[in-house]
Structure formats: structure tokens, C-alpha cells
């Protein structure tokens, strides 16, 4: 890890913020800012994508068989409610001090948000629209793909925006087990009161969140021109 490097820096006297960034951006070693940024991206993106991939079939099933919805959503909400530390403790015995230990709970959190989004999105399809699709001779699969899912997209994307921002922010918690991505910069500062890493950590995490959110807004515009047009009118 980067501890020796950091202690050495401080021993050399407090450098300026820019100096610190320049020296630590790419040391070629584990724990450089670039390295932490990469880890952070992996640990936040994998849960977002995996969460969506898993929430879609779960949401479709829950919308189709309503009795499935409450128990399924309940399971993910309970996991969501559990404090991170015991969850990590539990997982460490299986997956060790690895990224997977952070990725798994974050994926559960993503599902906890996205499952209702998918169900609500499908519920936002007006009944007369569904009925007229049936009456025109859509097969159930084609109706789902060409009518129901496209109409659900705005609600699902709204959920996805929440998930993206919260995942990017929550990865930092992994610092508890030495897998916090940019969050590692905060724990180091806690051990050695020293401002630059904290500032860099916060700025980069917020920047990541903004970029992810911006990309999703862009996707929303491209995928659902009919929603934008409605707002404009």
C-alpha cells in the first residue's frame, strides 16, 4: 500500500497541493492516485451494470407475478438497511479483502433501488396503451420489447441516476477493509492529518459522479426524445 510513500512525503515537510498531486498521480506503484481512481471506477461501475442486468429480469418477473414483488423487494431492502461493516465482515470470510467484497453489497444496493424502478416503469405503461398493443396483434415478447420497456425507460433511468451517484460515493466505505478506491485517500488523512489527499479524493469522487450523471442524462435524451418533447411543450 501507499503508506510508506505518504509518511515519507510528510517527513519531507508539507508540500503544496499541486506538488502533492504531481508526485502521487502516477508512481507506478499500488496506491497512486491514478491507481485508486481505476479501482474506484471498477468498484462503482460493476455494481451499476450488474445491478441493472439483475434488476431487469427480477423487475419483469415481479411485474408479471405481483406476489413475487414484495418478498423480492424486501430481501434487497433488508440488505440495504444492514450497516456496511458487518456486511463486509460476513463477506470477508468468503471473498477476502478483495474488490468483490465491496462490489457485492453495492450490487445489492443497486438492485434495491432499480427493482422498484423497473416495476414502477412497467406500471407507468397506461392500460389503454397495453390493451391496444394486444389488440393490434403484438406477441407478448414483442409487446414487452417494443412497447412496455421503451415506455418504462424514463423511470428506470431516473433510478439508474440515483444508483450511479450513490455507488460512486459509497465505494469509499470500502476503505474500512482497505478497498475504498479514492476513499483510501481519506483514511490516510485520518491517520496523518494532511489536507491534499482529502481534497483530491473529494474532488475526484464528485467529478466522477457528475460525469456519470451527465452521461445518463445524455442517454436519456437520446433514448427518449418523446419525454423531452413533452417537457418542452
Amino acid at each position, binding site marked *: 500500500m501507499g503508506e510508506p510513500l505518504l509518511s515519507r512525503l510528510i517527513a519531507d515537510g508539507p508540500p503544496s497541493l499541486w506538488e502533492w498531486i504531481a508526485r502521487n498521480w502516477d508512481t507506478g506503484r499500488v496506491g497512486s492516485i491514478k491507481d485508486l481512481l481505476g479501482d474506484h471506477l471498477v468498484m462503482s461501475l460493476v455494481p451499476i451494470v450488474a445491478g441493472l442486468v439483475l434488476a431487469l429480469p427480477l423487475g419483469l418477473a415481479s411485474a408479471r407475478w405481483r406476489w413475487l414483488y414484495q418478498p423480492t423487494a424486501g430481501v434487497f431492502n433488508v440488505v440495504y438497511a444492514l450497516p456496511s461493516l458487518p456486511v463486509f465482515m460476513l463477506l470477508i470470510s468468503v471473498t477476502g479483502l478483495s474488490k468483490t467484497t465491496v462490489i457485492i453489497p453495492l450490487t445489492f444496493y443497486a438492485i434495491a433501488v432499480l427493482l422498484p424502478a423497473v416495476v414502477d416503469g412497467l406500471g407507468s405503461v*397506461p392500460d*389503454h*396503451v397495453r*390493451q*391496444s*398493443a*394486444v*389488440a*393490434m*396483434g*403484438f*406477441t407478448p415478447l*414483442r409487446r414487452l420489447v417494443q*412497447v412496455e420497456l*421503451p*415506455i418504462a*425507460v424514463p423511470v428506470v433511468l431516473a433510478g439508474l441516476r440515483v444508483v450511479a451517484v450513490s455507488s460512486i460515493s459509497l465505494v469509499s466505505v470500502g476503505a474500512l477493509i482497505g478497498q475504498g478506491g479514492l476513499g483510501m485517500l481519506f483514511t490516510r488523512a485520518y491517520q496523518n492529518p494532511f489536507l491534499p489527499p482529502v481534497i483530491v479524493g473529494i474532488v475526484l469522487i464528485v467529478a466522477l459522479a457528475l460525469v456519470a450523471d451527465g452521461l445518463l442524462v445524455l442517454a436519456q435524451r437520446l433514448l*427518449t*426524445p*418523446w419525454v423531452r*418533447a*413533452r417537457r418542452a*411543450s
Partner: protein
Amino acid sequence: MITFDAVTKRYADGTVAVDNLSLEAPTGEITVFVGPSGCGKTTSLRMINRMIDATEGRILLDGDPVQDIDPPKLRRGIGYVIQQAGLFPHKKIVDNVATVPLLLGWDRGKARSRAMELLERVGLDPAMGERYPFQLSGGQQQRVGVARALAADPPVLLMDEPFSAVDPIVRTSLQDELLRLQAELNKTIVFVTHDIDEAIKLGDRVAVLRVGGRLAQLADPKTLLSEPADDFVREFLGHDRGIRRLQFVGTEGLRLRTDLTVPAGFSGGSPEPWVLAVSDDGRPVGWLRGDGGGEPEPYGTFRPGRDSMRSALDAALLSPSGCAVAVGEDGKVAGVATREALDEALAEAADG
């Protein structure tokens, strides 16, 4: 032809929505199902395209039981229009209209040009094709709904209260438009409404249903108005049944007087209480008193042969003279139907 053969629908909760219904909807005609809310109109309609399956009995489409046809295939051959139009909010109007052709595997270009053609046909500017449904008024959406149902040129059209949600003026124009389209297309149409006036205006045949899903009467509109089968039908038809029946009585035989017209500059000297002032080009100006006093008074017109007795009577009631002005296609005065002439025609209508 659509045949209901002793069809019953019992829902899972025991509700009998349709009870032993037998009737035929002839090819190329508009058959209207009318009745109070909950009498099983929607259920009956949806059993035709198998959105609902009958519990007992059979429905035949040109002799083939619909139960034997795969639902998606069956439905692609049957146009369907509903009250809220049911347009896809995420698709442009042109793509909405092209839906069934695309389901049938037409190529995109052909489906879209067919859609444009249909938009024009139902009285919409094809430029609207590039809009989204929410950018259209209710009446326009309903027209798109009709265009979409007609896109693949299905022989059968099912319409479930398609004009109920629009305001009365738009409704009237949509009804006229449907009659105009039907004169060109000759579809087999089953039209559901709770509005008896709409049923009488649109139906070649009207099936009156009562709550519990039983057929009360099946007849053409004129017979329905003159010979209601029972008290339920009589009550459902409403109080001004006699007046409304006059819309099926022609004005061909109405006796017209041509000696009641005077030039616009008339200044008195007629023994008649009222005379009709006519302009140099033969158009009506107004009623004048036979002694020449006062300003021209309002008049009402009708077209003999084309308009009904109801229109002629209405025209008579609009003028102080109590006479209706008959005009030709060119708007020129053809004669005057006096109270006596109207009276004779009404007496005849009452007899026959």
C-alpha cells in the same frame, strides 16, 4: 360477416357479462352495440378478437370459429379503436399508424408511406406524422387511432366508444368522417357506444343490450325508433323518439309552393301573411309581411330529397312564417314548404 352463436361470458368472479348472445354483423355494414354502462358491450367486442375468450358458444368470422385462429394472427386482421386512442406515446404518429403493417412484415418504407396516405385519408395533415401523440388534440389522436386501425386494410373494424371522450362538435365531425370513410371502404364494423343518438346516426343495424348481457332488440335505426320491442328499449331511446324518427323520413314527397316568393324590393300588396324575399340571383333574403311592413325576418332552409323531415321541420321552426325554405344544391330557392304541406307529410309519416 361476424356471427355470435349463443355466446356467453362468465367472468372468474361469477359475473355474467354476456348472456346467450346470438346475432350477426353483416359484411360491409356498421353494427352498433348500444346499452347502459356494464351491459357487456366491451366484453362482446373483445370476444371477437379474442382479447377475451367466450365461456360458451362460438363466434364465427366469415364462418370460421375465431377460437381456431392464433390470437396475434387474428388480431392483425382486425382493426381496433378505443376511447383513449391507445396511441404509443414513445412513437411518432407515422410509426404509430405503421404499427400493424410492420407487425405483418412490410418493409419500413412501404409501411411509412402507407401511414402517410392514411393520415391524409382521415383528414390529418401528413406533416403531423413527425409529431408525438401528446402533441395532438384529443380529436386528432382519435383520427390517428382510426388511421392506425385501417393501416393494414383489415376487412373488420372494432370500435369501443371511440368518440366518447371528445367534445360534441369534434364528435359530430368524427362521426361524419367515419360515415364518409365507410362509404368508400365498406368495412364490416362493430361499433360500441352508450349513446343512443350516436347508435342511430351510425348504425346500419343497432343491437340494444340490457344489463346482464342480454340482447333486448336488434333492428335498423328506423324500426328501432318506430317499434321498440319493450319498455326497456323504449325508455333507453328517450322521450323525443318521435322527433328523432323524422330523421329517417325523406322530404322527396314534400309539396312545395313556388308562388310565395317575391323580389327583394317588394313593398306590399300580397294577400298572404308572409312572403319570401329572394335576391336577383335566386337566394333567400328573408320573410316579409304580406303588407310590406318591417324588415326581412329570419328563415331556415333544407335540401329536398337530401335532408330529412327533421331538418325541414327544424327549418320551419326557425322562421316566423312557420314555413321551410327549400333550396337546391346551388343555394337557390326551389320553393316553400308551408305548414300545411309539412302537416300532410307528418301525417303520412305517422301512418307509415
